[in-house]
Structure formats: C-alpha cells, structure tokens
C-alpha cells in the first residue's frame, strides 16, 4: 500500500481506512522519533562507557592486586611469624622462668 501511495501520489485507499495506517505510522513515528533515537544513542554510549570503565577498573584492580601481593602479603606473613615467635618465647619464658634467649 505504501508503494502504491508512492506511485500514485495522493490516493484514495489510504484515506479510506486510515485506522490501520495510522497504527503503522505510529510505530513508524515512534521508532523514528527523536526520543527513541536519543535513547538508542544514550544506550550505546552507556554500553561503551561501561565497557571502558570495566576495562579500566579491571586494569586498576589488576595493578592494585599485584602491588598488594608484592608489597603487603610478605609483610603480613612475616609479621605473623614474628608474633608467633614472640608468643612462643613468652610461653617458654613463663614455663621455665628464665629468659629463653639462649635457645635456638
């Protein structure tokens, strides 16, 4: 029908059942309206930004994680060991009643 109307310029059948045509044109109008186009644009932009953000955060997380692994994890382990040794020594000292600095 659309092709007919294009061919014949203004034709009667289009006017005869305007209801059907109007519903179509509404969909068409909605899909071609500025709001939808803007929404689409916004959605793609949001997707792009999230992708970028995700990428950069994952990179930042990777750098932070590896840095943490190198700088902090050994420190925690060693502090823990030191603490354990202190506790052990304290325990021994309290058991024996003598400073246990000569052992080991």
């Amino acid at each position: 029908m659309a092709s007919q109307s294009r061919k014949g310029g203004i034709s009667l059948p289009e006017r005869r059942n305007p209801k059907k045509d109007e519903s179509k044109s509404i969909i068409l109008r909605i899909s071609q309206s500025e709001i939808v186009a803007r929404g689409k644009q916004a959605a793609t932009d949001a997707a792009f930004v999230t992708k970028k953000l995700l990428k950069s955060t994952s990179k930042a997380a990777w750098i932070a994680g590896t840095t943490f692994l190198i700088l902090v994890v050994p420190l925690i382990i060693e502090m823990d060991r030191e603490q354990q040794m202190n506790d052990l020594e304290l325990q021994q000292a309290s058991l024996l009643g003598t400073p246990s600095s000569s052992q080991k």
Partner: protein
Amino acid sequence: MAALAPPTTATAILPEPAIPEKTKADEKVDYFNLPCPIPYEEIHREALMSLKPELFEGMRFDFTKGLNQKFSLSHSVFMGPTEVPSQSAETIKIPTAHYEFGANFIDPKLMLFGRILTDGRLNARVKCDLTDNLILKANAQLTNEPHMSHGMLNFDYKGSDFRTQFQLGNGALFGASYIQSVTPHFSMGGEVFWAGQHRKSGIGYAARFNTDKMVATGQVASTGMVALSYVQKISEKVSLASDFMYNYMSRDVTASFGYDYILRQCRLRGKIDSNGCVAAFLEERLNMGLNFILSAELDHRKKDYKFGFGLTVGE
C-alpha cells in the same frame, strides 16, 4: 637471638653520633666539640639502604668460607637473564650465567678484596688506614674489553668534626669533597670534580640533618641533579623512607616511597615509585649462616616483571 637479627647491612643503619645526646641534655651546644659527619658520598646512606636493595632476576648462590680469622674465600654463581641496553624502548634480555670467585683479607688496618668472574672481569679493592685519620682507598676494575677498565684512588681525611676526600681516577678524573658538621645534628658539604677525558667539570652541594629518629638530606649538583631524601625511624625494627629525584637537564622526576622491616628472622624491604615500579626484597634467615633471598620487581608501565631467588651460605 635478638642480637643476630640484622642480616647484613643493618648495623650500618644505627645513627653514628652518640655525643648529641649529651649536648642536648646540656641545652647548650658546644660548637668546638661537634661529632664527625658521615662521608660526603654516603650522605644518602639510610635512604639508599631502604630504597635500593640489590634486586636481581634469576638465581644466585653465594658461598663464603673463612679459612682463618682474617682470610676468607667466596664463591658465587648467578644464572638468569641480564638486560642489554638497546635503542628501542623494549628491553632485550639475554640469558647469562657466570661464576665469581673472590678472596678477602680483612684486618682492622688493611682490607683487601678481589673478585674475578668467568667472563674475564676482575675487580680489586683496597682499604688501608695509613694513619688514624688518613685512609687510602683504591678500586680497580679490569675487563677484556678495551676502554672499559677503571681505576680509582681515594684519600680520605677524617677530622674531629669534618671529613675531606680527594679522588684520583683514570681518564684524568679529579675530585674533592668536604663535609663539615655545623650543629650536632646538621652537616653541610660540597664537592668539585673534573673529568679531563670527557672535558666535564662540576660542583655540588649537600646538606644533611639527622637525629636519632629521622634523617633528611638534600643534594644539588651542577649536572642538573636534585636529590632529596627523608627517612623516618618508626621503631627499632621499622623505618620508612622516601626520596625525590629531579634532573634539570633531562627533566625527569622520580619519587619513591619504601619501608624497611628488620625482624628477627628476616629483613623485608619494599618500595613503590612514581614510574609505576613496585619492588620487594626479602632476606629470610633460615638457619645460622644460611639466608634465603627473594626479590621481586614489577614495572607496570613497561610490563617488565623480574623475579629472583637466591641462597647465601656463610656470613
């Protein structure tokens, strides 16, 4: 147990002047009885100790055996990739392995060190106390490549509140430095050098402020270098260090921050700098005279990751 904690260089960290304690109590500074400053070349000693551990990549094994009280032999094996300088931004690594043999003679008055590597490099060092105040230091490096051998002769004179050094090197290198204690905590110094072969000369100044809790140093030189460092000793075991380097000629700036933990069983040093470089160095004491070393360095910007492990046996 606690006494054997500091693994190698820890003893050098202790603040040198013990006299300031007394003068502080008196509230009046005796300017004729100032402590001797530390040598000009070691002005950043504490900061360097915390921020510049000997990071390496690969495997190393060091063995030192004392033959008698004064004489010892050392053997060392290194295997791993070494970086080769290239024009492109990417570093090229070539796997290498070498063995180093060394002989040391240590006497209070005379110290001799010799090192020879399988690739033909020879390093010799002499430190000799000529009198109580005058120390002679010599350093020679011989290689089989032409024009890469170096020789250096230093005369250090140590006064009651100043130190001065005269330096002679091959390639017509002359240098002199002087450092003077101004107050019990503050010392200032300067240096001049002239390299005849490269037709270069320069002058530099440095200042250092140290108390038993912190050390702050600053150095400028006519080569365009500005170096500032600050070390805070949180406790006997922990010190935090930061430094700032600026080169006026090449316009590059680096700032770094590091920690240095000296625990009973280990020494751990970590640092992070503004070039995106993270490094950690762990020396773990497994047994008496047996140390295990772990070294890690991440360069996030260049994506260059270096890991190394090693074992040190004896001393």
